């Protein structure tokens, strides 16, 4: 209800706007990460700085990227550099007892060598100090300066997988919308950044609101809602800015796009028949098909990972609640029963956890364990909305309000450790966590 009301208000405001524009720009608008809290449960890990030749100056320090990644997960903490008792460069140089005495069970070491062609060879070893053996050994060749961060994320993923059994989701990207005031005008940008908020790139700039970016499963395209034509429409564009097109500008509202897991269809909300209902568009033919027929507002659809059903928000029972629509039979069942308000569903990649905006003394992100049928509230921030799972399901990214400003926050699903991501002099909204990059 609230969401819909907001949407209508936005539409009205957009109609009143006199100027609008479209820019594809490469302006950096990095997210600043504030560590909100750290967990007592964090396991210490030694991440040694990668050895480099004395005359080589790296544009990025991969060990710092890794340490920050591990810390952000809420599960690990890298030993501060000054606390490292030694700097072994080879496995034979590792004094296991020395490291174990520091309470550290794992050690990462490696080196970066300039190959003389402006690129680098990066090598890493990850040592299990308890079992006294190397558990990861990896080498990347011809890595350019900027890609050092990408490699650091890949290294983080390997370490994360070794220590948790789950694939890391550091080497991923996120999309979000920023809003700031520029010459007394509101400027909206659609940004894509690394999962740590670094390397943000605006792929769209507009004086009209941009909403609900949605990643295509291959991670190459984004669908989103734009008001550039005075009304809500769904646009599609490649990350490099090319092949941009408006794919849905039907009568009434066009909103809340959601890609099917196979990427062949897109479900969105449209109100051409009067009330907002869910429609499915075949991407190949652009044909649409109505999925729900109800006087109530049906919106915010997300696909179940198996692609056979949709979770969506409907106020058919008087207040917004989450329902599930089975696409083969057309059956609908109610999913959320806790509280009077549940909206914005997001399903974890394994289909076990359903995140939603849950009203309980304010709006928070709650996660329902679909197997245990238990709902737990994950956030303590204010006016939380738009939850989106990391592709490994271990973390949730969402939008919230802090100090009167829209910011993003990341919370780990199993221990509630939260980090806040914000932009300078602006607000951030509508986050969407992209798929694995490779």
């Amino acid at each position: 209800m609230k969401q819909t009301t907001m949407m209508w208000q936005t539409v009205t405001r957009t109609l009143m706007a006199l100027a609008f524009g479209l820019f594809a720009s490469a302006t950096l608008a990095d997210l600043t990460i504030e560590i909100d809290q750290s967990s007592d449960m964090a396991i210490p890990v030694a991440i040694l700085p990668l050895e480099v030749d004395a005359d080589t100056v790296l544009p990025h320090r991969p060990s710092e990227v890794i340490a920050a990644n591990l810390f952000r997960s809420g599960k690990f903490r890298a030993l501060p550099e000054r606390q490292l008792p030694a700097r072994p460069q080879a496995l034979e140089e590792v004094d296991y007892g020395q490291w174990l005495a520091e309470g550290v069970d794992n050690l990462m070491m490696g080196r970066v060598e300039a190959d003389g062609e402006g690129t680098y060879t990066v090598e890493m070893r990850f040592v299990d100090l308890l079992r006294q053996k190397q558990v990861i050994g990896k080498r990347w060749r011809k890595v350019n300066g900027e890609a050092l961060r990408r490699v650091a994320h890949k290294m983080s993923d390997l370490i994360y997988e070794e220590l948790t059994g789950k694939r890391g989701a550091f080497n991923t990207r996120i999309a979000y919308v920023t809003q700031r005031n520029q010459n007394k005008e509101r400027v909206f940008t659609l940004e894509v950044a690394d999962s740590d908020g670094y390397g943000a790139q605006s792929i769209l700039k507009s004086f009209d609101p941009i909403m609900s970016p949605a990643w295509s499963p291959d991670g190459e395209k984004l669908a989103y809602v734009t008001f550039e034509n005075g009304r809500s429409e769904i646009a599609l564009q490649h990350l490099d800015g090319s092949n941009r097109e408006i794919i849905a500008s039907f009568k009434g509202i066009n909103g809340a796009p959601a890609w099917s897991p196979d990427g062949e269809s897109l479900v969105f909300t449209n109100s051409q028949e009067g009330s907002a209902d869910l429609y499915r568009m075949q991407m190949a033919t652009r044909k649409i098909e109505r999925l729900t027929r109800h006087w109530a507002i049906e919106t915010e659809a997300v696909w179940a990972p198996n692609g056979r059903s949709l979770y969506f928000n409907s106020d058919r029972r008087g207040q917004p609640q989450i329902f599930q629509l089975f696409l083969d039979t057309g059956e609908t069942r109610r999913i959320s029963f806790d509280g009077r308000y549940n909206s914005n569903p997001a399903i974890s990649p394994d289909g076990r956890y359903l995140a939603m905006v849950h009203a309980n003394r304010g709006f928070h992100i709650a996660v329902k364990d679909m197997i245990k049928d238990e709902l737990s509230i994950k956030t303590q921030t204010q006016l939380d909305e738009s939850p989106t799972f990391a592709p490994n399901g271990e973390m949730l990214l969402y939008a919230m309000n802090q100090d009167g400003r829209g910011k993003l926050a990341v919370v780990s699903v199993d221990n509630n450790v939260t980090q806040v991501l914000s932009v300078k002099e602006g607000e951030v909204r509508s986050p969407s966590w992209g798929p694995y990059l490779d």
Partner: protein
Amino acid sequence: MIHFIARHPIAFAIAVVLHAVLIFLMATNRFSDFERSTPVSVAEPTAETDSETEPKAETETPKTAPAKMAPMRTFAVDAEQVQAQLEKIKQQEAAKKREAERLQEQTQTEKARLEKLKAEQKEALVLTEKAKRQAEQQRQKAEEARKLAQQASQKAEAEREKIQVARQSAEKARQAAEEAQKQQQQAQQLLEQAKQAKEKEEAERLALQAEIQQREADKRRIEAESLQARLQREQEQAEAELAKQLAEAESQQRAAARAREMQDLRETYISSITAAVKDNWRTAAQVSDEAQCVIAITQTPKGMVSKVSVKSCNDAADAQFKKDAERAVLRAQPLPQPPVEELFERNIEFIFKP
């Protein structure tokens, strides 16, 4: 009053004299006839009890009364005096009556006392009589005793004489007897000699017999003794066997108790290892509460793990859980030492559940 006397001494003297005369007259009972002539009938105090039961006495009284009452009629007194006199008499009568009652009472008391006295005297008499009789009896007894003593002394005298006679005859008899004895002794000696010879022979025979018997007895005794010894030996063996068995049983019990104790200690040891591993359990993974595995450890005597393997896990334990369980074991190094050295086990298996 004194003044009156002082003024009229003569009159007072006359009055005193008059009163004295009157008192004298009354005291000498000159008016006793007068008193009896009063119409108030007063019975004799002594006869009162009888007068009620014996009307005869009452009828007799009037016969004598007229003769005695005659002088009274001529005695002129004024009415008041008479009245006063009557009053006085009445009072006197009453006093007399009271006196009579008192006397009667006294009489009765006296009578009772006399009776009591009489009874006491009677009793004393009886007692005296009794004492007398007893004395008589004693006297008779003494007499009898004296007679008996006399008889006894007579008897003793006779006895003495008899003894004297007997003694003399006894002396004669003794001499005869001695003679007889001598002869008898001689005969006896002969007989004795014969007897001894016979006895000797008999003794020899008996001795021989006894010897035979003795030998037989010895034989039996030896046999018995050997049997006894054998039995004793057997018993001793049995006892020794029993003692041995008991000792074995006891040592078995001790061993069992020790084994139990060792078992307890072993359990404590194993659980201390389990606890140490649990303390060192750390995971970054999402682990099910139900996950559990059997962990097999090979360790050095100093508790350093030379080999650890995780096996027979339940469905809730995934690969990451196994890996982390293994890490927990390694992190727990050195493993706790056993409470007693002999409990050390190189290979230990335990169920691990974080």
